[in-house]
């Protein structure tokens, strides 16, 4: 996840619980991040799960990916 962020969104280390938007992630970067997460983990984030809380931090995204992978 840190690698995805570094490649696709933010060019500095981010603490797992740091709010990504406060760390400089723009809304366009969020699109890139969600699509990159989907491609990297070969999954599709359900529409209902595309909400700020699930993408607020690295921890939140990891939790979301885990939950989708368990569900699928």
């Amino acid at each position, binding site marked *: 996840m840190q690698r995805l962020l570094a490649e*696709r*969104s933010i060019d500095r280390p981010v603490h797992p619980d740091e709010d990504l*938007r406060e760390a400089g*992630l*723009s809304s366009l*970067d969020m*699109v*890139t991040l969600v*699509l990159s997460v989907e491609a990297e983990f070969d999954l599709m984030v359900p529409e209902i799960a595309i909400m700020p809380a699930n993408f607020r931090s690295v921890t939140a995204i990891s939790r979301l990916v885990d939950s989708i992978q368990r569900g699928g």
Partner: protein
Amino acid sequence: MTHVLDRHAKRVLDMLAAGRGGNGAELTPRALRESMERLAKAVDLRSVAVASVDDRRIRSLAGGMTLRAYTPLTAPNELLPGVVFFHGGTGVFCSLDTHDGLCRALAASSGCRIVSVDYRLAPEHPFPAAIDDGLFATQWIADHAAELGIDRERLAVAGDSAGGTIAAVVCQLAQRAGGPRVALQVLLCPVTDLASESPSRAELATGFFIERSTLEWAKALYCAGADLYDPRISPLRSTDLVGLPPAQIHTAEFDPMRDEGQAYADALSAAGVDVSYVCHEGLIHHFYCMAGAIPRAREVLVPVGAAIGDALRAAPPRPIVAQ
């Protein structure tokens, strides 16, 4: 009109909404340019095959300019119709790279050579630098058509969004100057009027990919105090549209720029120009560059490109009528 967002377009808008509200992302040309480059890598059409993609540096008004030529797989060695392409991005962001997938798709679906132009951006180079570069590049490509494998009589100009503005303005200026000869203009979700706010700009001001606040910010950087009624900024404001090249104009139903694209189609048509106009239902601004995330964009680009190829191959030589 269906008035229903394409579900993949809606996902993109939902993702944008999920990223809104931060205080950390400052709106700067550099930040936006970098965001668009990264987004392009995640959503474009890299997989579309072409025979070749060649960058070429030419001497231009500002010293140098890069042209990127796409050769389709069909008949790569023949003299083919050509399309001078101007990428969008409000005149402030985007590049040859962000629109690489779109140019590949258009080369493949049109069977034409596409030449994408790396014109100068604001705020480093505000209006009229982009327009000057657009006209210069079109003239250069027309003058070097044979060398590029392009049939000079079958040369179109095309662009999306602010690149559509450049394409439309190049046609107007070329018409007035008596050249270069343009056989067709192709405008994808073009910006045609910065002098007033159309109903679709008001209705779709927030939450539809490009925000009014971003458009206003970019407009100030691009125009840098120039007269917004200048037809080189707002081609819809030109009072002289007679004799312009045939036009293919595409808009998207959920695009703030929808109404001004349609208004330009109507104005050209009223001036006797041959116009085909399509509003793509359910789609959003910039959809044509996000085919990796919006599968229907890929489908739409097939007939869009085919229509360009068909029109150019059928184009009769156009007399130049100096005004």
